């Protein structure tokens, strides 16, 4: 997961945005770039062309429900999504995001954020700033073992460090 402060615009979505909407299975055999071009197609065709690199998805409850397919993370990353803020996440999606370094933040104040709001996320501080509204929201801290993974930059860098130490 990238460190420091991230900045981008909010793209709003509703509840239960599932993995078939994020990354439809018929594109899964394509290369990563092409999977990215079809990101969110099930719910917003043309999403990948409309967003700017680093923009955030801001969604309601149960984001990422359904499959364990990591092409959901690949699709979002290659489409240029800087992170996902949601009221709640489906658990496999949440884990996959932590493991692959896609920033995911659980935030109850999602309804305060409107489509197009300019956001700034401080991952280390656990804070989302809504620059358009001049507000800031605190993100609940992660369990220590998950934080360790996030701070390492995902599971692969974490494993690398672990393998070097043994």
């Amino acid at each position, binding site marked *: 997961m990238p460190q420091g402060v991230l900045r981008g615009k909010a793209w709003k979505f509703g509840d*239960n945005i599932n993995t078939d909407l994020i990354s439809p299975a018929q594109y899964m*055999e394509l290369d990563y770039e092409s999977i990215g071009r079809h990101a969110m197609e099930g719910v917003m065709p043309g999403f990948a062309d409309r967003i700017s690199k680093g923009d955030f998805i801001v969604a309601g409850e149960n984001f990422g*429900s359904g499959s364990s*397919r990591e092409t959901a993370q690949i699709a979002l990353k290659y489409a240029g999504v800087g992170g996902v803020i949601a009221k709640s996440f489906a*658990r*496999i999606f949440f*884990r996959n995001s932590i493991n692959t370094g896609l920033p995911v933040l659980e935030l109850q104040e999602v309804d305060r954020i409107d489509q197009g709001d300019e956001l700034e996320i401080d991952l280390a501080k656990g804070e989302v700033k809504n620059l358009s509204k001049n507000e800031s929201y605190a993100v609940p801290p992660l369990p220590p073992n998950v934080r360790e993974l996030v701070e390492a930059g995902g*599971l*692969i860098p974490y494993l690398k460090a672990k393998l070097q130490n043994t």
Partner: protein
Amino acid sequence: MTITEKILASAAGKEKVAPGEIVTVKVDLAMMTDIIGPRIEIAERLKELGARVWDPEKVVVVSDHYTPPATARQADIVKFTREWAQSQGIQRYHEYEGACHQILAEKGYIKPGMVAVGTDSHTCMGGAVGAFATGIGSTEMLGVLVTGEIWFKVPATIKVIWEGKPGAGVMAKDLILKTCGVIGHAGATYRALEFTGPAINALPMDERWCIANMAVEMGAKNGIIEADEVTAAFFQKIGVDEGKHFSSDPDAAYLQIIRLDAGQLEPQVACPPAVDQVHPIREVAGERIDQAYVGSCTGGRLNDLKAVAKILEGRKVAKNVRLLVSPASRDVYLEALKAGLLETIAAAGGVILAPTCGACVGAHSGLLAAGERCISATNRNFVGRMGSPQAEVYLASPATVAASAIEGRIADPRPYLEG
């Protein structure tokens, strides 16, 4: 402790664990597929880390989503998966043999008390024999392959007690769809679902798999049914030692207990586009369909095909409707063939497909056009799941799918089973 807590405690080498506690556990079984397997992060990253699979005997690789391949690219993926499994010395590689979860079941790879992970969300199906089984992503799998371990937050358990005895034409699929309707699509997120009660105990093994399979449709980490004499008979039949049993203590703590009555249950249908939009058959009967689909790890087992053949016997699939039937595995295919079930289905106008994930996952073999409607014995009805985002999928039991195929509209299977 509950059965889930006991399995996790044992795998973590602890006397006791409690919900919310984070534990690192040893993995007994790690399963990968073709669609999300070696080709996504795993093979390349393993090389990059200079690591090898920790224990090839604990690993199963199944090419099931892209078999038989519909495109050259799918064929490349299957070839890559096969060659990677060989290069890692993984003996338990299967292709063209059926859906991965059914392979784990019928080969006896998944056993009571195990901790099993797989790169497919329906890995939770393994809980039907009293194992802790859950789906993970491929990067997470890379971690398992390197270390042989994984961390979990011990889930609190929701106990679902099914009382009563379901009537003719009501299948395990109806029980689990009803459960999804009651709990909701995200109602069991981070939880364990423990299924019990007389209606569950009376289910044959074939039907129990269907129950555990859909735990993830409620967001659950795992679904579990305690092993009993039905489980023992199953392992005896396939000639596999079933290993160690766990069971929940009488004073185990549950987050919630839900009681449901199978005796009063009608056939259930989940309407598009969510698994929890569940209605009794009378509320949706009569809706036009274009396709009827029986198959997958959820609804393609021998018991399912028996139910379908029983309803189709001496009848015909409606004009303008196609009935597609994909047995869950090669073994199921063969048994259904020997029992004459496939002949009955084909004679009625059904099309027998290869054992595959195929259309259930929108990969091949029966995708839907815009504006088409399918009633399916599979597990998901999300937008775009089986083809066009403008198509609609209704989920129901194999019996309801068969009755609907005959009538060309969503139909109650019970009248076909009278007398």
